[in-house]
């Protein structure tokens, strides 16, 4: 199907959507294509971005038209394995750029997290084909902003909300396991078919493979010099939410093979000894590349993301030793329960995890990235800074480019401090 026809069929606002894609081109050129020493394997990921609202959307539309569900998600807590096991497809939604602000502010307060305002904006302005191709969305109670926004959003798109607990005790795990069971029951009811343990096992293996490949990528970045830039690695993590998992895994595995060769040859994207930074905090949805780009054009390299678009997504694997439905669902719940999101209280796992990333990567500094009005992360940044083994720069920003130079000054001064 021709792209325009595809977008028209999905009910997008063609004119505004065209303008959005046009704005992406020069930004992509500046942030990604202008880099030197990029691995060849990035070619595939470049081609995915070049057709970001095209080929994959067409595939998803086919899945939907063949009667299988396409489910949109906002958060790494949604157990996507279940959706794949039931023959569906799971996709992340557009939320990385401010659109249709006036329309959004008719419904939501001005002082709200830019990510929430963005997904509303994409829906109200009909600009996200992933949103439109979905049969329904799965939300979750990871923050008050989202939780309450879903109550308004459900007038615009069918929405199912999972309750994520906020403590890591036994009672909370029981609640979470029950939430996963409830989610499975909901899907089975909607689809009129039962979840087979065999299919669930296959889906777990499919997603495990993707997480393994991402973990391998992240380990390779710990080399000095790193064989791939933080920008390219961030992009790969972002595309992990969109692409077909099997194709994505095989392309990423091939890229990792290439990166391994680079490491053996001592080849990297910057000279050895370049200051190394771990980025920690809020997720960065496409095309939110601002901070990584600023860091990497100020003489440092980002060697890890302690983030939902990063290590929190890659995290642990689901144990597949079980064969029963009950056992597999429990293994699934256990894996997701380990996510160290700032919504948990207390949340010492996150600080331990960050310290271990710093140690493994040899990073000299941590940049804590928080979206404006994101209470869990802006508040937790204090403890992150206090317990960090290396200096921390706390940044609070949104999607607008207006504070670029102020951020640059802070980032450069931080790097001067580390040197």
């Amino acid at each position, binding site marked *: 199907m021709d792209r325009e026809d595809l977008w028209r069929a999905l009910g997008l606002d063609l004119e505004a959507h065209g303008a959005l894609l046009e704005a992406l081109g020069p930004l992509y050129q500046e942030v990604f294509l202008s880099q030197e020493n990029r691995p060849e394997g990035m070619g595939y990921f470049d081609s995915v971005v070049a057709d970001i609202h095209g080929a994959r959307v067409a595939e998803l539309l086919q899945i939907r038209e063949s009667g299988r569900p396409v489910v949109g998600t906002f958060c790494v807590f949604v157990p996507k394995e279940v959706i794949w096991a039931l023959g569906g497809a799971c996709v992340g939604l557009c939320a990385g750029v401010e659109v249709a602000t006036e329309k959004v502010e008719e419904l939501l307060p001005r002082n709200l997290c830019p990510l929430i305002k963005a997904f509303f904006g994409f829906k109200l302005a009909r600009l996200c084909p992933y949103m439109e191709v979905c049969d329904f969305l799965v939300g979750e109670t990871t923050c008050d902003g989202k939780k309450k926004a879903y109550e308004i959003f459900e007038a615009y798109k069918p929405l199912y909300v999972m309750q994520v607990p906020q403590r890591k005790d036994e009672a909370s795990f029981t609640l979470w396991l029950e939430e996963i069971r409830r989610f499975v029951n909901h899907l089975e009811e909607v689809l009129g078919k039962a979840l087979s343990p065999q299919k669930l096992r296959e889906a777990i293996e499919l997603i495990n493979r993707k997480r393994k490949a991402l973990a391998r990528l992240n380990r390779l970045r710990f080399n000095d010099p790193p064989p791939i830039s933080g920008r390219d690695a961030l992009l790969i993590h972002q595309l992990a939410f969109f692409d077909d998992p099997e194709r994505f895994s095989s392309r990423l595995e091939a890229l990792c093979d290439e990166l391994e060769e680079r490491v053996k040859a001592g080849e990297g994207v910057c000279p050895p000894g370049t200051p190394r930074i771990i980025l920690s905090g809020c997720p960065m949805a496409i095309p939110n590349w601002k901070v990584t780009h600023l860091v990497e054009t*100020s*003489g440092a390299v980002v060697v890890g993301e302690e983030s939902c678009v990063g290590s929190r997504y890659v995290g642990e694997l689901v144990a597949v030793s079980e064969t029963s439905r009950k056992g597999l669902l429990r293994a699934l719940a256990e894996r997701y329960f380990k996510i160290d999101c700032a919504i948990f209280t207390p949340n010492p796992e996150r600080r331990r995890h960050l310290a271990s990333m710093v140690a493994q990567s040899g990073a000299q500094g941590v940049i804590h990235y928080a979206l404006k009005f994101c209470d869990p992360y802006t508040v937790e940044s204090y403890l992150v800074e206090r317990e960090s083994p290396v200096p921390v720069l706390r940044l609070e920003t949104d999607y607008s480019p207006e504070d670029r130079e102020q951020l640059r000054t802070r980032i450069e001064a931080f790097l001067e401090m580390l040197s």
Partner: protein
Amino acid sequence: MKVVGLDVGSRTVKIVVLEEGRVVEAHREETTARLPEQLRALLSGLEFERLVATGYGRNLARELFGAETLTEIRAHALGVKHLFPEVRSILDIGGQDSKALRLDDSGRVVKFEMNDRCAAGTGRFLEVMAAALGVSLAELAQWALSADQGVNLSALCTVFAESEVVGLIGRGEAPERLARGIVTAIVKRALGLLKRVGAEAPLVFTGGVALNQAVVKGLEEALGFAVLVPEAPQMTGALGAALYGAEERIVGQASGGSPPATARPKASASDRAEGCSLMAPRFSTPR
């Protein structure tokens, strides 16, 4: 060796020329909207071996003249350390930004904080408030010093605080008390930044707002120790940039790929710029 330090700030451009470690020229002018032309005019006729730029326009100076660059944070640290070798903390309140820095005893910045994007508590805030009261900055400071007590301004945002001040004028509030309230608002904001970096004495206050005696006095009262102000508090960034050029060797910093060279400011009493009175350290009026 002749080195030029250029601090291209939001409100003023500052230039300091060092020759064999001595300040031979120090000059400051308002930033205009035609910045490239202004910078070219400022440098025309000057001969120098190295040019180091800091401030918001530093990257423009790099593009135009191939200047080496460093951030205002590091530049102020170098400049102030030179004038006050014992310094441990710096508060810099310029036209658009306020910053607090804590240094270790070798003069390295170990922590810094900056205001976020808005101009709350900066020189711009003072300018807007002075305009709302219809007085000069100097008069505003005098009024503030003459009041026994200030009004409590709840808004810190420049635009909101202006509305609040206008509202209070309309209610017949004494302008001296308003001026004092405005100064207190700046002091509170600065204290917040200073606390976040764990500031301790000796503390040096730089930037245009350091010329305001009422702000200095308010800070001293709140901190409980003397605040040091250089003779020319707006010039320490440009001075630091020039000192960096005189003392540092940089390897490919501009390329973006390699790390900035290790900095070890080596200021001592002997290489201090005694030739130029602008640069001599000065204590603020003791309380």
